[in-house]
Structure formats: C-alpha cells, structure tokens
C-alpha cells in the first residue's frame, strides 16, 4: 500500500513539476522579450521591466487557471484528502483495524452469499435461450398421488395437439443401472430415459454422434444410448471410436449413438444422469401401465405462460377422461401449472437463499452503523481540528468531502479484505450446500460478484459517512475552536444520532438472533426426533442382483442365504441382516386387505401399504422392539405358512377398535388373481421412513426367505467404527459374484444426517451471521457508552465531589446502556415479528412467534449490553473528582 502510494505520488509530482517548469520558463521568456521591446522604445530599464510585468498580468492567478485547465486541482485535493485520511487512520490503528475488519466481514459475507444467489437465482440456465423453457406439470390433489408429474398419455396429447410450444420433451425418473463389461469393476451409474427431442428442445449439440431418432423412441425399438462426457472419459478413456460400440447396463446391451459435450449439465432430484436412453413410453391402451413423466417445453416466440396454460387446459379437458380407470373419479379436479424451468429447478432453495441474503444484508448494515458511530465519536473529538480547518478557509463541503474520503478509504480497504473473506466463505458454503443444484449451476466468485463487492463497499462507505456528515452540518465550528479540551460540544443532535445508530444495531442483531434461534430450535427438534431404531454403529450398503442371472425366487433366496452366512461371521459384527430397502427410504407398496372384510375399492389410497422383505435378524440389528407376538426365525421358510409382522400404525389403521391382530390374515394383492393370504405373527414399533419431519407410515414386513428380491440392502451392526468393516464386506460380496457392485455404502448415522443437511446448512449459516451481529452490536454499544463516559467525566467529577457514591455513578452509566438496549430490543421484536414470517416454511414444530426464543434472545442482548457497559462504567467509577475538576 505504502509502496503504491509513493509510486503514484512520484509519478504525479514529476508530471506536475515538468509542466510548472515549462510554464515558468515560458513566462520568464515572455517578460524578457517584452522588456527588451520596451527598452528599444526608449523606456528606462527598471520601468521597462515593470511595464512588462504589468502587461503580463497577475502571474499566480494565471497559474491557478493554468492548473485548472490541467484538471489537477480536483485530483490534487482528492489526493490530499486521501493522504490525510491515511495519516488519520494510521494515527489510530485500533480504530482502523476494527473498522476494516468489521467491514471486511460484512462485505465478505455479502459477496459469498451474493455469488450463490447470482448463480442460482439470477444467472440463466446453461441451455440455449433458457428463458423460453418451461416446466408444465399436473397435480392430482384429491388422490394419494403426491407431487407433480405428467401421466404419459397426457404428455402424448400435449405433444400432438398443442399450438404453443416449438418443442416439448419428456424425461422419466432417474434410474440406477449396473454398468458391466468394459473390463473394469462393475459400477452403479445413474441413467435417465428421455424423449428423442430432449436435447434439441434444450438446444444442446452433441459432442459426437447423434441423439435418438423416432424409431428408437418407441417400445421395442433399437436399444441405444447417449453417454455423458464424464462416463465417456472415465469408462472409455475418451476413446474417439466410441460410436457404434455397446454399453452393458443391467446385463442388457445398448448401442452407443452419441456423446454429450463436457459443458452439458442436467440434474433432477439431486441426481445427475450419466447415460441417457430413449423414453420409449408404452402405447396408450386400457392395459398399459401409466408412466409419470417430467415435461420440458420450449415456448414459441411471443407465447406467454397464460396462453400456454389455456392451450394445455383445453387439451386436458379431452385427454384426462381418457386416462385408465386408475385415475378414476379424480380427473375432474386436476391442477395444471406451468412455471419456467429455472423456477422449477431453483424453487426449493429460493426461500433459504432469500433468508441468507437478508441476514448478510443486516450484517453489513450493522457494520456500517458501527463505522458511522466510531466516526461520530472521533468526529466530536476532532471538532477542534475541523474548527481550525474551517477557520483557515475550508468550506463545509470540503470538510464533508474529507469525512467521506476517510470512510471511503476504510470501506475500500474493508472491501479488499472482504473479497478474501468472501472466497473463504464461499468454499465454506459450498461444503454445506445441498448438492443437487451445484450439479447444474456453477457457483464461484466471478466478475459480477466482484462488481457487487465493489458496489457494496462504496455503499457502505457512503452510508457510514452519512451520519458524521450530518452532524458536521449542524455543528457550530466556531464554538468548537473556542472550546477548551473539556467542554467539547457533544451536540444534542450528535447524541441522538449516536443513540439511533446503536439502537438500530441492537434491533438488527435481535432480528438475526431470533431467526437463528428459531432455526436452531427447529433443527434441534428435527434431529432429536427418534427415527424409531438405533442408527449408531450400523454400516449399510446396497446390491442389485441382475435379473437375467437371478430370475427365480430360489436363486435370489440362495444368494441371500450365502451372503448372510458370510457377513454374519465377520469379526466385529454383532448382527447382520438383509432387507429390500433401507429404513430411511420409502419401500415399495402393495394393495392389501384383511381376510373376512370386503375388498377395498380399487382407488382407495388407504389400502396401499409399504411392504418390505427382511431377514430374521432385521429387528435385532436395528433394535426395533417387537411389541407383541414373535419375530421371524429359521422356521419361516419358503414352504411353511406365509407370515408377516406389522407395525403399530398398521394396527391403528386396520384394527382401530382394539382387536388383536395376531393370527389374523392379510390378503396381499387383494382383489387380483395373485391374491395371497399372510398370517400376522407379530407387531413391532414404527420407524420414520419418510424423514424426521413426517409421521410414521403403516408398514408390513415379510421374511426374506418367503419373499426374496433382487434389490438387497445390507445392514451390519458393529461393535465399533462401522466403516472399518467396509473392505471385508466388499470382499465377501465379490467372493460370491465378482460382477456385483456394492453401492450406496454409508453408515446409518450419515444417511440420517444427510436428510437434515439442508436445515443444518441454513441453521449454521444464519447462526454464524447472528453471532457476528451480536459481536458487532456489542462493539457498537461499548463504543457509545465509553464515549458518553469520556464526555461526562467532568459531570461525574462534580457529582462525586457533591457526594455521589460509586453505585450512583454506575447507575448513570448502566441506565444509558440499558436505554439503548431496551429501545433496540423493542424495535427489533417488532421487526422480527414481521420478518420471521419469511422463515415459516423452514421451521419444524415451532411457530415464527415462539415466545421463549424471543425471551432468550432479549435476555442475551440485555446481558451483552451490561457487559459492554462494564468497562466504561469501571472507568467512570474511578474518576477522581480532583483531577476531573482541575481541567476547569
């Protein structure tokens, strides 16, 4: 900094000096010539020179004008201001460090959050003309079909009959495939079925080969695949002759027809497909299954969302009644919505991001208030200096500019450090952020974010300069210069401004603290909800048996038995079991009824119940209590009576009148030709499969031996750190079948933590900002109170001389501090009541007006203000009346 400054000065000085020298020489020459001419006219030498000078005019004023032409006057004053500001800042390094650090934190936090907001909410999606891309979708609110999707017959109708889209493409959900046969180890990869025009609707050119054609996008068409750039590189080493070769997915061959460019990104539900297959949705007839699709369409130029909605509604009115009976009576009440693809992809993070943006905005405002306050205090101390300067001819404007320059310098320095803080903060944010969006949007500090940081610094500079400048305009500078050291006029307006600033700091800090408190409380409640089983020291992994080699129940059951036999005896394993799904995932569902009761209506949602097959030790492994009856055991084999264990929620739904469920029979696949009776032998406690925020669902378990599956989840309860067993587990699986990949390996604790990752992120970020705000507000109160004490030293001295005790002095000081805190708290509570409504959708089991959170926060702030008063109060109590009065 110093080096730069001196360089700049030298450069400027030399430029000015050269120009001044040139002018001086010209003037000298000019006068010389005129004098000679006068001499030739016969004027005596002394008079000749005098006349020449007279004729030339006032040299100094001309020089001023000359410099003005050179535009150096403004720059000169500015440089002078900056130099002076530097000197002032250097003179009080403590103030400077606090101010720069404060601003750096404020600007850094803003830059980091802004760069995320910019990438997620402001930047266009990485597709061609993304503003025209929309996401039309349907909701069936009266059914138990949750969420938004488009049944594929409706997609066909839209595709064939719409007048509003230049293209309409469909995606199926992301599936997992086992990739084998390329020489390397087997691997699970994500794949997605998409309509043939998917890439062209997004406006993506393939890097190699072609997309699907309409021949391939129909049932029974050729088996083809398009690879992502990533899998082409990792699995095929970027082989340029890739086209026409085959890829083995779940033991089926697909011919590779194209490769996507490296820049292409698509993500849905946090999954990024690595291979794309043709949609090939089934033809529409009464017996065909219904596929639930996601639809992406490109609006024709000039078509609005409302027009598109009207057009699709019209098509729906004909197409919905043609849906199979499955959708039954519900077709009348269907909600159509069309949003931009951007809104669809970013909808879930909009609220958390706005909350964070607001939080960092508050931080910056508090930081500005702090700087302004510090400047104000110093401004009054510097009243004499300003008085002197104005006596020497400085205008008010000039003084105001000086103040502005000083705060600007501070905020620019703060901004520089802030950008570094921002880089650091962003990497912190990135490690916390839910991963889904980051797959599509690249988040980093770019030119836009830097421009934002600069704008924020300048704004911070102006805002923090406002109050000191305002106080300058009212102050009587003449009084200031006449006043002695003791009676510096702390004008009433100044005191008011200072209090106002401190009060607003407290208010802003309270709002942030309330937000953080609510989020924290909600997070604690969310994570303290028992999942219904003991997740500690459990290792989980999944296997998917390829159907062509494990097609019969006997093959699947044999694999399970062999695997269980191997992993149960691994050293360190307390209990081992297999299940068709992990306890934090939703299981597949089955329509069922109770024997002896009427068959439930086809579209009765309550007849559909989650169903899992589990091995004997499942309940012991997860420590799920059996409430009545028995667990599964070796006796429950393929040839014995079919049995089931149900959970308490199942009993409540199907046996609401307290009947004993043990011994009753469930009819699986009720009402169909596959209907099978199963005897209930036990009742277990419920587990929360849908996440901690959701109610437990009814559930039925069957023994794996009686109902084997190709989808297998492994659960190992271990004596100590479960991850230590990972390689042993992998070896055992490969020993049975060397083509089987083990995937989704994790500990149960990590899986559950992943469910609350978003909340963890919001809570820790807002909590961090609230702590920062608390710190800054504390510094603010401290600054004001210690300033007030230093101003009142004389008054306190008089009071003590007149007999006031230390306790009285303490009371005076603390009263001032509590006044600020109290006013700030009241205003802050008002603001928080309004603003925390923003948080409502992020909160779990707690209202935004939770009184206990507000009380705790208020108590924290009062304690903080008392602490901030403590040091100045002690100084006040130590005032020696003799010394204080001697200044008189």
């Amino acid at each position, binding site marked *: 900094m110093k080096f730069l400054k001196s360089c700049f000065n030298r450069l400027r000085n030399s430029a000015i000096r050269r120009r001044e020298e040139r002018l001086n020489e010209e*003037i000298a*020459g000019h006068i*010389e010539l*005129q004098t000679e001419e006068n001499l030739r006219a016969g004027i005596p030498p002394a008079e000749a020179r005098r006349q020449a000078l007279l004729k030339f005019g006032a040299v100094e004023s*001309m020089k001023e004008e000359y410099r003005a032409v050179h535009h150096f006057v403004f720059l000169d004053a500015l440089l002078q201001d900056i130099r002076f500001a530097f000197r002032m800042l250097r003179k009080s390094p403590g103030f400077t460090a606090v101010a720069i650090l404060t601003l750096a934190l404020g600007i850094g936090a803003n830059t980091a959050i802004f760069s995320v907001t910019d990438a997620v909410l402001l930047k266009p999606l990485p597709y061609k003309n993304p503003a025209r891309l929309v996401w039309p979708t349907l909701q069936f609110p009266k059914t138990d079909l949750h969420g938004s999707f488009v049944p594929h017959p409706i997609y066909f109708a839209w595709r064939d009959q719409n007048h509003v889209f230049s293209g309409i493409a469909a995606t199926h959900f992301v599936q997992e495939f086992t990739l084998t046969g390329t020489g390397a180890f087997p691997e699970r990869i994500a794949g997605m079925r998409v309509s043939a025009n998917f890439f062209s609707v997004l406006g993506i050119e393939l890097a190699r080969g072609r997309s699907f054609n309409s021949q391939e996008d129909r049932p029974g068409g050729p088996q083809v695949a398009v690879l992502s750039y990533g899998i082409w590189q990792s699995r095929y080493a970027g082989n340029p002759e890739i086209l026409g070769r085959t890829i083995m997915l779940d033991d089926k061959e697909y011919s590779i027809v194209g490769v996507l460019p490296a820049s292409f990104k698509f993500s849905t539900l946090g999954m990024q497909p690595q291979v794309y297959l043709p949609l090939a949705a089934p033809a529409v007839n009464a017996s065909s299954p219904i596929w639930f699709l996601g639809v992406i369409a490109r609006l024709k130029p000039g078509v609005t969302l409302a027009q598109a909605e009207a057009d699709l509604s019209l098509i729906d009115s004909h197409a919905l009644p043609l849906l199979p009976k499955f959708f039954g009576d519900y077709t009348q009440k269907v909600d159509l919505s069309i949003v931009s693809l951007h809104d669809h992809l970013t909808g879930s993070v909009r609220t958390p991001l706005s909350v964070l943006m607001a939080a960092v905005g508050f931080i910056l405002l508090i930081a500005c208030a702090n700087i302004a306050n510090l400047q104000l205090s110093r401004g009054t101390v510097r009243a004499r200096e300003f008085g002197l300067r104005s006596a020497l001819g400085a205008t008010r404007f000039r003084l105001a500019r000086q103040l502005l320059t000083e705060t600007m310098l501070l905020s620019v320095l703060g901004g520089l450090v802030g950008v570094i803080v921002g880089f650091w903060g962003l990497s912190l944010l990135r490690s916390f952020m839910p991963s889904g969006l980051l797959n599509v949007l690249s988040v980093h500090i770019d030119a836009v974010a830097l421009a934002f940081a600069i704008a924020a610094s300048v704004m911070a500079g102006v805002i923090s300069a406002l109050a000191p400048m305002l106080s300058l305009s009212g102050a009587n500078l003449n009084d200031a210069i006449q006043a002695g050291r003791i009676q510096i006029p702390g004008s009433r307006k100044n005191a008011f401004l200072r209090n106002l600033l401190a009060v607003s700091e407290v208010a802003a800090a309270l709002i942030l603290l309330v937000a953080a408190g609510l989020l924290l409380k909600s997070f604690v409640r969310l994570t303290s909800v028992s999942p219904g089983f003991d997740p500690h020291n459990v290792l989980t992994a999944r296997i998917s048996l390829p159907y062509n080699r494990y097609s019969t129940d006997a093959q699947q059951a044999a694999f399970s038995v062999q695997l269980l036999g191997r992993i149960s005896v691994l050293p360190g394993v307390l209990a081992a079991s297999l299940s068709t799904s992990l306890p934090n995932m939703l299981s597949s569902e089955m329509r069922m009824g109770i024997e002896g009761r009427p068959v439930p209506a086809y579209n009765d949602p309550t007849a559909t119940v989650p169903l899992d097959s589990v091995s004997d030790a499942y309940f012991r492994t997860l420590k799920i209590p059996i409430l009545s009856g028995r667990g599964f055991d070796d006796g429950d084999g393929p040839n014995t009576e079919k049995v089931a264990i149900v959970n308490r929620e199942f009993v409540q739904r199907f046996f609401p009148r307290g009947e004993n469920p043990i011994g009753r029979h469930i009819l699986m696949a009720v009402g169909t030709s596959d209907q099978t009776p199963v005897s209930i032998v036990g009742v277990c406690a419920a587990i929360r499969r849908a996440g901690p925020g959701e109610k437990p669902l009814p559930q039925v378990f069957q023994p794996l031996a009686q109902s084997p599956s190709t989808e297998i989840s492994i659960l190992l309860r271990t004596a100590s750190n479960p991850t230590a067993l990972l390689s042993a587990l992998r070896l055992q699986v490969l020993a049975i079948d060397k083509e089987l990949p083990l995937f989704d390996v994790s500990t149960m604790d990590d899986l559950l933590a992943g469910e609350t990752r978003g909340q963890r992120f919001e809570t820790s970020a807002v909590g961090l900002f609230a702590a920062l705000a608390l710190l800054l507000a504390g510094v603010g109160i401290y600054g004001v109170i210690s300033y007030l004490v230093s101003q009142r030293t004389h008054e306190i001295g008089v009071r003590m001389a007149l007999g006031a005790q230390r306790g009285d002095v303490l009371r005076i000081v603390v009263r001032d501090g509590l006044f600020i805190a109290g006013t700030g708290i009241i205003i802050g509570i008002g603001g928080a009541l309004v603003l925390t409504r923003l948080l409502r959708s992020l909160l779990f089991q707690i209202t935004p007006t939770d009184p206990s959170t507000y009380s705790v926060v208020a108590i924290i702030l009062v304690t903080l203000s008392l602490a901030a008063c403590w040091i100045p109060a002690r100084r006040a109590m130590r005032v020696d009346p003799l010394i204080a009065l001697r200044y008189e």
Partner: protein
Amino acid sequence: MKEKPEEKTEMKSDVQQGTLALMILKTLEVLGPVHGYGIARRIEQISGELLAVNQGTLYPVLLRLEQEGAISSKWGASENNRRARFYQLTRAGRKLLQAETREWKQTEAILSRFFELKPEDLR
C-alpha cells in the same frame, strides 16, 4: 500613472469566451510556428489596442488548445537566442479554425441583418 493600466482594462471590451482561442488559431495559421509572446503581440497589433488582454491569460488557453489537439508545441530558440516554446497549428486545429470561422461569419451575418432592420421592414 500607477492605476492607469487597470482603468484602461475596464474601459476596453472584455474578450468573449472562445474568441481568444479563435484569434490564437488564426494567428498561428497566418504566422506559422510562433512563441507565446509573438502571439500576444500579434493580437495586440491586429486589434489595434482596442482589446486589452493581460498577456498571461494566453497561456491557459494555449494549454487547453494543446490538450484538445488543435495545436502542438516544441522548444525552439527565440529572437534573443533564449529557449522559447513555439506553437504550431495541427491538422485538427486547421479544421477547427475553418469550422469556427464559418460559424463566426454566420453569426456575424445574422446579427448584422438584425442591426440593419428598420421599423418599416417589419410591416
């Protein structure tokens, strides 16, 4: 005697803004490269002492014209063999002079027509 020059200044007309620049440009066009003193003398001679300019006021105008690129300057030797700054019209300056001259003549023509107006002309 001492206050006379100042009185004289007040009586003579003030130089209109921009006029001085135009005079400088015209002077340079006629004389070629010349130093500041030369320009000052020439303007005094042509205006026939009707126009009194403090010679010093020339220099800021010269600097401005140079910054605008209408004139250029370099060191040379004056009549008394001293170093002096010689000013010269640039190509841009020549164009500027032509444009200014045209404008000035137009203004002059319009104004003189107004001055020739008699009451009966307006009827």
